[in-house]
């Protein structure tokens, strides 16, 4: 989970919601690539469509990082 980062926000005893714990943010793969190099490995066309990119090096699957609290 190289592209998932987090920090812990300050929690005061006077904050009514229980602390969320870690607050998450993303630093997706393109931030580490100023200019895409030639000849990167590719997904198959079907897989590329499913993933939203032709190149595994630029693929970043996203999922809700927080627990569901009801």
């Amino acid at each position, binding site marked *: 989970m190289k592209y998932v980062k987090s920090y812990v926000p300050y929690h005061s005893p006077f904050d009514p919601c229980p602390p969320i714990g870690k607050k998450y943010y993303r630093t997706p793969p393109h931030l580490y690539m100023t*200019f895409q190099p030639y000849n990167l490995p590719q997904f198959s066309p079907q897989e590329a469509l499913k993933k939203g990119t*032709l190149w595994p090096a630029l693929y970043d699957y996203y999922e809700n990082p927080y627990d569901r609290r009801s």
Partner: protein
Amino acid sequence: METNLPAEYYQLLEELQAVDFVLVELTLYLDTHPNDTASIQQFNHYAQERKKLKKAIESKYGPMQQYGNSYSGTPWDWNKAPWPWQV
């Protein structure tokens, strides 16, 4: 209007969507990498593939494009439902 499209329609459509997606990705890539000859070759290969797929879909399900970018059946079949958001 309710029409039940055969499973084959969705399958053919997805094949075209996959090939076209490669073409979109390569188009944007080549816009910033105009000298990558291997990618240009790949682009031209898939451009041919999409022509074949478009033809296969149109022969069964009617024109994908108009303004003359597809042939028309009789009667005029461009405005026949379903539209992309309906299927």
